[in-house]
């Protein structure tokens, strides 16, 4: 079965949120290897220090030496100024030569998994969580779609880094499940509205990251906590690289149904 899989992702403008560590950092690295010279990576996260070290690494890489531009935009996406700075940088980096815009909505937080649903009596805490995990994602995507409008020959891909938690409830994970379910629906609506956009909700699986460390040490539900610890002890956590490779394959093949939820273990 021959595939018309492309060998690269074109001359792309990539915007990656939560790029400073974990899965986002790996996505930045992997994308840098798959985009053509003249491409631009906009890396955003709150931690300037971590972004700079990634910028240096990428600048020194083969891609960096062949004409990949990397720009760091330290920003808090839950703040208006943060959103504006990422959009401005993206708009400035965009040019007629760019044939692919790739937005990777990866930035997220776990929320307090050490407590159960009936403990969330503080609206401000929930508001704050939704602000980062849902609102900032919606507004950043909306602003970028407006700033980088459709054009003949331009492909626009929007990726939502999701989780099994978007589809199934997990005890003591109310905020995370709620935020992921919200995002999933959000992107399904976007996919339904804009048939020309390539929208993908990618679930990377249980990754060996700091987020996982918090999950296995703080989860209030004892069964769930044990599941995470056991996965870790048995070496069953995926490396970010292994999971990211699957995401890159999906993007290169470009045959996914827009708006679909695809899990690493589906491939």
């Amino acid at each position: 079965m021959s595939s018309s899989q492309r060998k690269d992702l074109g001359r792309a403008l990539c915007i990656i949120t939560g790029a400073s560590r974990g899965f986002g950092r790996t996505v930045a690295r992997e994308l840098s290897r798959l985009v053509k010279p003249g491409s631009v990576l906009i890396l955003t996260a709150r931690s300037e220090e971590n972004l700079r070290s990634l910028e240096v690494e990428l600048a020194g890489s083969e891609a960096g030496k062949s004409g990949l531009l990397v720009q760091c935009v330290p920003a808090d996406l839950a703040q208006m100024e943060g959103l504006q700075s990422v959009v401005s940088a993206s708009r400035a980096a965009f040019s007629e030569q760019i044939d692919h815009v790739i937005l990777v909505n990866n930035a997220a937080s776990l929320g307090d998994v050490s407590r159960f649903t009936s403990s969330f009596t503080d609206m401000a805490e929930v508001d704050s969580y939704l602000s980062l995990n849902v609102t900032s994602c919606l507004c950043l995507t909306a602003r970028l779609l407006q700033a980088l409008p459709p054009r003949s020959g331009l492909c626009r891909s929007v990726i939502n880094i999701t989780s099994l938690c978007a589809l199934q409830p997990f005890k003591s994970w109310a905020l995370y499940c709620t935020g992921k379910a919200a995002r999933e629906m959000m992107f399904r609506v976007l996919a339904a509205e804009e048939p020309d956009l390539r929208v993908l909700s990618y679930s990377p699986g249980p990754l060996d990251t700091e987020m996982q460390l918090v999950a296995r040490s703080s989860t209030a539900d004892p069964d769930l906590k044990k599941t995470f610890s056991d996965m870790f002890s048995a070496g069953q956590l995926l490396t970010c690289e292994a999971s990211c490779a699957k995401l890159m394959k999906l993007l290169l093949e470009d045959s996914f149904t827009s708006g679909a939820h695809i899990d690493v273990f589906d491939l």
Partner: protein
Amino acid sequence: MSDINSTNPRTLGRGICIITGASKGFGQALAYQVSRSLEPRSVLLLVARSGPLLQEMKEELQSATEEQQLVVHCVAVDLRTKEGVDETVRVARQEAVDEIEHVLLINNAASLGDIAKFETFTNPDEVNSYLSLNVSSPLALTAGILQLCPCRPGLRWSVVNLSSMFALQALPSWVLYCTAKAARNMMFSVLAKEQQHVKVLSYSLGPMDPDMQKEILRLTNVNHNPMPCHESAAKLMKLLLDNNFSSGAHLDFFDV
């Protein structure tokens, strides 16, 4: 007035029932029906922004249920605020006496939000405000109510999430509404999984609410042919009285 026990052996017990968005539409219709199924000396909290509308309802309800000695509280608050949620919980706590057999919370208050293309939602204040009323508020209120009194045998807990088919199905231009309903559905599913003694129901009431329908018509020119609220409210009542639903289920008016 006929004896509730002889005409309808199933009741909601001697309960404390909290209904948000109770001043009009579905919430109002449900309040009237719930009042008829509560046993003597039950308490009904009607929560909405409009004090005058609630007061009118209270007078009607109390005269219709005189023998029942139904206690009706009007809680005129804005549930977008911490103060509004806290006040509702405070009033409920005052009434949560030892003899209460059932705590029933109906999370009905909601807003439509702007019906517009995804791309237009560039203002985080607008989106945050919407999510606050439609997601954070019901979570904080539910958490507060669940802490009203300790679990004990003979005390029944029911939490209802007023939902929509658009919690499950994406509808172009309805990103705010769909997102919030999907969020709520998940939130209440997690609650159901965690708490075995609380029965959680997400009830999708169909194109019912007349005020919302007017708003939808105005914004989209689409008429969804609403049915009277009392029909949908009656179906929800049946679900609550039968009490056979699986906790965490998402049931639609058209399925029941």
